[in-house]
């Protein structure tokens, strides 16, 4: 489902004459199979977020190749990646990234709007997805009226609503307490099993790492170990 080959990346800091080059990823290669939950673990600054952002198309690729669902996305333009993302990849962020002026229903409806789905179909799909993540009855609540766990569930529903093949999650439990964390992990597991969605999850939390079929360990921009469960 995801195939990364010899991916390297570096950041350039400072002004023209005093540029500092910081290598973040070095020759990273790995693959994620369909229906698999893979966790990327490592310390802060190990390059796991950069890797996820490259796969998600938020950063321009410098070297190496990325293939998602059999399609080489390495040379996609911003617009091409946006279109590809909309139909194929769902995102879950650490701090939920919900639009504060929209209620739960509107946040979940947003990807459907961007895809040009009709209003009637949107309503059915959005409500169904909210129900799936256990937020029935919370449609009209704004993010500020929801708990952290509920907000993350809205975020999961938004990622799910277009039936993506892959969900990329960046520290999904980072802002949650242990009880809600457990609920969310349970939900992810359930979605993986029932809908066969592939998950690539970044975490430094051992509990999260446990739910993966595989765990990839990163250190100083390189994959150093792999644990298959």
């Amino acid at each position, binding site marked *: 489902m995801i195939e990364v080959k010899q991916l390297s990346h570096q950041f350039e800091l400072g002004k023209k004459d005093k540029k500092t080059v910081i290598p973040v990823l070095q020759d990273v290669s790995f693959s994620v199979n369909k229906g698999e939950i893979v966790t990327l673990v490592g310390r802060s600054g190990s390059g796991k977020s950069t890797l996820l952002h490259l796969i998600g198309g938020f950063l321009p690729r410098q070297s190496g190749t990325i293939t998602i669902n059999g399609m080489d996305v390495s040379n996609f333009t911003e617009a091409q990646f946006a279109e590809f993302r909309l139909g194929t990849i769902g*995102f879950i962020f650490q701090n939920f990234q919900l639009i504060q002026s929209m209620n739960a229903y509107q946040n979940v409806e947003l990807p459907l*709007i961007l895809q*040009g789905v009709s209003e009637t179909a949107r309503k059915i799909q959005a409500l169904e997805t909210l129900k799936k993540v256990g937020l029935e009855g919370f449609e009209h609540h704004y993010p500020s009226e929801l708990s952290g766990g509920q907000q993350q569930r809205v975020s999961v529903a938004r990622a799910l609503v277009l039936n993506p093949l892959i969900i990329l999650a960046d520290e999904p439990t980072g802002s949650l307490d242990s009880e809600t964390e457990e609920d969310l992990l349970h939900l992810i597991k359930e979605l993986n099993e029932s809908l066969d969605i592939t998950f690539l999850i970044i975490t430094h939390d051992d509990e999260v790492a446990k739910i993966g079929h595989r765990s990839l360990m990163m250190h100083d921009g390189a994959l150093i170990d792999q644990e298959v469960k």
Partner: protein
Amino acid sequence: MLFKDQLYFVRENMKKNKMRIFMTVLATAMGTAFLIVLASVAFGLHDTLIKDVLEQETVNQVQIYGKDDPNSQGITDEDIDYFQSLEHVRAVRKQSFFRQSPLVSLNGYETNPYTVAVDMAALEAGGTQLKDGRYATSSDEVIVGYHFYEQLLEKGTDPEDMYDENGERIKETLYQGKLIGETIDLTVSRLTNETDTEEKTYQLTIVGVTAEPANEWQQDQSLYTTFDFYQSVSEYTGTPGGEMYFQEEPMDLTFYYDEVTIQSNNLENVQALTDTINDQGYYGYSVASELKQINMLFTIAKAGLIFIGAIAVIIASIGIFNTMTMAVTERAPDIGIMKAIGASPKTIKQIFLLESSIIGIMGATIGTLVSYLISFLVNIGLPMILEAAFEDQLPEGFQFSSIPWTLVLIAYVICLLVTLISGSRPAKKATKIDVLSALRREL
């Protein structure tokens, strides 16, 4: 993304900062209103002038004053045949003036009218309407001008007694009898030698009265006869048109027309007809030539005023630019989320361009409505102010300001264009927002 949803997004976004949007729309509306009202003055004055020119009966006429030929003494029947053969000619009116004002007596009233021989059949064919009666069909029939009766004075009355101290004609002194069917005595004089004169009286029947002239200031007091009668008078006096001139040798009485008027079948063809006639060496003149110059002058004036008005819209566009830039900055995190989900740069750009266009359309619409109101008030109020200040009455139908749909269209196009240009840079900025920076709230 469906257009309907884009509109919904824009509406929701606009609701978030109503006051700022209101002020921007207000500035745009003021700019548009300024543009329309300013240009409407040129449109209004142009319309008034054109209306005035078009009201003249002569608007679709070409007047021929002569021929650029040293051997030619005037317009002959041969020339008339040529005019009649031309395309777009509805009728050729020709007339010859009597060289003396004969004495006309009618039921005890007298006058010395300006007498003209006209082609009655051509007048009828040219659509010249009569107030009463019909056109003359024989040489002993005449028609009189609409104001002819005003000239008639009771025999033996001092003309000074006809007017009051204000110089107005005393109504009781006017001829009150009927005209149609009445017989007039028309007395023509001729010189029998250098000093002596003799007279001949013709009895003619009035069969028609011409229609009231289009303009109030025009007076039609003439007496119209047939060419046959004109020839009879010429033969009696031995001079063309009864001229009081004596010469032993008989004079050449070849008939020439003093004035020829060609009526075109269509206003649009008048200019082409005038050009054709002038190219053939005739001296032709039409009001249409003047109209062309008026139109050109006003087109320049309109363009100039629209240009000045457009500057106001451009100034208003600074507000739109500012509003849109603020909106992009404020919504950067939301734009980042949308882009992360899968919104294409094109969609983001469309939403912001749509928002600035809506501000422009709202401004243009309000500005147009206000302009119509100002125009209406100016057209009502200004004549009243001018009349009160200068004690001078403006002509009837005078329009100071006029807003045709073309001006509204021009204002909308300018407004929309300016708002799109001013909104395009913020919209482009929105597409360039870095997703990661926006998600980290670094923008």
